[in-house]
């Protein structure tokens, strides 16, 4: 078995999935890893279900995370974790933003979500990232960055915080640095 680290981020279009992908892949690259990612654009971006993949390790082949191999699954919308879970193993860590947007079909409540994940993994964490970011930073758009900082701090994502700080600076215009760096460190406070 190889040691590629596999991340699946699921959410709805417009939540900044591609921004997270950019930051994490830049940080992994700066740490000397081979990196491959895959993202989706176009119609799906208009509020529809989207998932992106980030893989890093010594040598990465496919840009798609193989099923059963996700190490870390981040859901920026709580129901979307059920899509990310398609890639889970017993060891997968789930970080779920406690935030719901209607599917316009059948919606699934948080209890039901937890129940469906109970047999999948024991490491399922629901975090009110949107609420915290809105309250503390006045902007919930950085909730993904908050979860990223959380993952690094808890060592769920094997990349140093310093690299992620640098990656934010490398991948974003300067006017967004302050907000995003604050969000990255917010879970510490």
């Amino acid at each position, binding site marked *: 078995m*190889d040691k590629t680290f596999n991340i699946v981020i699921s959410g*709805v*279009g417009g939540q900044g999935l591609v921004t997270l*992908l*950019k930051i994490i*892949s*830049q940080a992994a*690259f700066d740490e000397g890893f*081979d*990196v*491959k*990612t*895959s*993202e*989706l*654009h*176009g*119609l*799906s*971006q*208009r*509020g*529809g*279900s989207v998932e992106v993949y980030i893989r890093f390790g010594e040598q*990465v*082949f*496919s*840009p*798609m995370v*193989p*099923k*059963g191999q996700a190490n870390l699954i981040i859901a920026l*919308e709580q*129901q*979307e974790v*059920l*899509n990310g*879970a*398609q*890639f*889970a193993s017993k060891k997968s860590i789930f970080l779920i933003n406690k935030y719901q*947007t209607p*599917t*316009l*079909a059948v919606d*699934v409540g948080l209890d039901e979500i937890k129940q*469906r*994940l109970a*047999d*999948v993994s024991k490491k399922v964490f629901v975090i009110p990232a949107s609420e915290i970011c809105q309250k503390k930073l006045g902007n919930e758009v950085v909730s993904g960055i908050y979860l990223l900082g959380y993952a690094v701090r808890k060592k769920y994502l094997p990349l140093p915080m310093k690299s992620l700080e640098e990656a934010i600076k490398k991948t974003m215009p300067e006017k967004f640095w302050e907000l995003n760096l604050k969000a990255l460190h917010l879970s510490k406070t």
Partner: protein
Amino acid sequence: MQELTRLQNERVILMGNEAIVRGALESGVQFVSTYPGTPASEIGNLFSEIAKNNDSIYFEFSTNEKTALEAAIGASFSGLKCLVAMKNFGMNVALESLIPFGYTGSKGATVIIVADDPSCHSSAQSEENSRGFAYLSHIPVLEPSDAQECLEFVRLGFQISKRFHLPVIVRTTTRVAHQKAVVQTSGLPKVRPSDAEFIKDKHRFVTMPPRVMEMHQELLDKISIIKLFVEDSDVNYVYGDLSTNTNTKRAGIITSGVAYLHVLEALRMLGKDVPVLKLGFFYPLPEQKIKDFIKPLKKVLIVEELDPYLEKEVAALAKSANPKLVIYGKNILPETGEMNPEIVAGAVAAVVRKKYVVPQSMVEGVKHFPRFCSGAATCPYWRVFAAIKKAVPENTVFGGDIGCYMIAALPPHNLYDYMFCMGSSIGIGHGIAKATNGQQKVVTLIGDGTFFHSGIEALLNAVYNQSNLLAIIVDNRITAMTGHQPNPGMGKAAETDAAPEIKIEEVARALGVKNIKIVDPVDGFDELVTSIQEYYPKNEISVIIAKRICALLEKRQKQ
């Protein structure tokens, strides 16, 4: 994205489409034209930024893919290095000019990017496989697997085009175009501002019989020479070692595009060492290399997305090279949808007789349907569809088209009764109206960008052949869905804020439409309802332009 022009010899992370742009820059590209279409859209977006501050690169968002290709053909005939980019259906639009371009060949080296979308992640029309254009056009086709190859294959495409005077197609898919990976870049050549000149050469550029028959033969002759080049090319190579291939019962794999990466992933998952022939060229194929590869094998697995083009070619070659060869392909792999590592692992495992169970998740997923923007930037289309529901009976036939407003096909609207391709809402609606003697009323929806792309021709036909449909043109002042590219209705173009503004109502009037109204669907909601009601019973064609800026664009302009 000016960073792309600043890179030197560096290792960086690039998206496939960024690597394509970089490859074109490293080749000294001078003329770039495109019509936006996912998953190729970023190529145009990047070049529109790059060309703004660059005297040596001309860039345009053309009005459709055919005019984009034709612009490049003209520039190529004038000696410039050209890049054209489009999505797969765009090539259908451009096809009429693609075929004779093979006959005349290129003068300035020309590379055409065409991006496919297996699984239709962002395409509503079909899973069209652009590799098939090779058979129609006899134009060489390269298939990159990763971002590095996107860069290298564009460079190779320019080299081949320069040497053999033929355009070259580089075909990507969503998982290549929107893949980010580590890429090694090279330096940029110095490109001087163009002093291009069209030098008359009727023998070369005029396709008329009987000369056109000679040109056809010349094209086939070029391809036979390119075949020799392809046999020697290192973009077709064997990964792994045939001689150590003992424990896999003399099996081999032939693959191309992103499927190659899934194959390597699958072999690692299975802990198997099977030789892989990786094909960078789809057309022409390195036939001898394939024969040499399959000769010692007992069985071969062909891993390719969508149609079994390679599989059929290998089967034909095996007849002489290895008649007993057992060929696996679409008998154990899907012909629809994209592939992924576990699908490929399942097929490889079956061929090498290893136990492997494709992991199945027990968790039931969810589906957020795409929707019109709401909240801080609320899409004006919400009001358009509310007005339609209010104004016309439910048994109306609703025709949809390609753009953000196609979201009305989904819940909660569930509106459209047919939806096809760019411009077809009016074209097909006309046919329904004629077939039913105008008894079944047709209301069609088309956006400003799509109207300029190919709605104009359909409207002309509907006026000329006198049908009674009501065409609602939702004009949000930009080509929105593909990421906000300018179109002829805006008074802006790629390199200038002072382009002629083509007014949709003037176009409609010039085409002969008598009933025309322009209404703001938000501020003039009631007027929109009464306008639809007024035009609906008319027994001639009517056009309502629901004109209101895209809310996202408005928000961005204020920022």
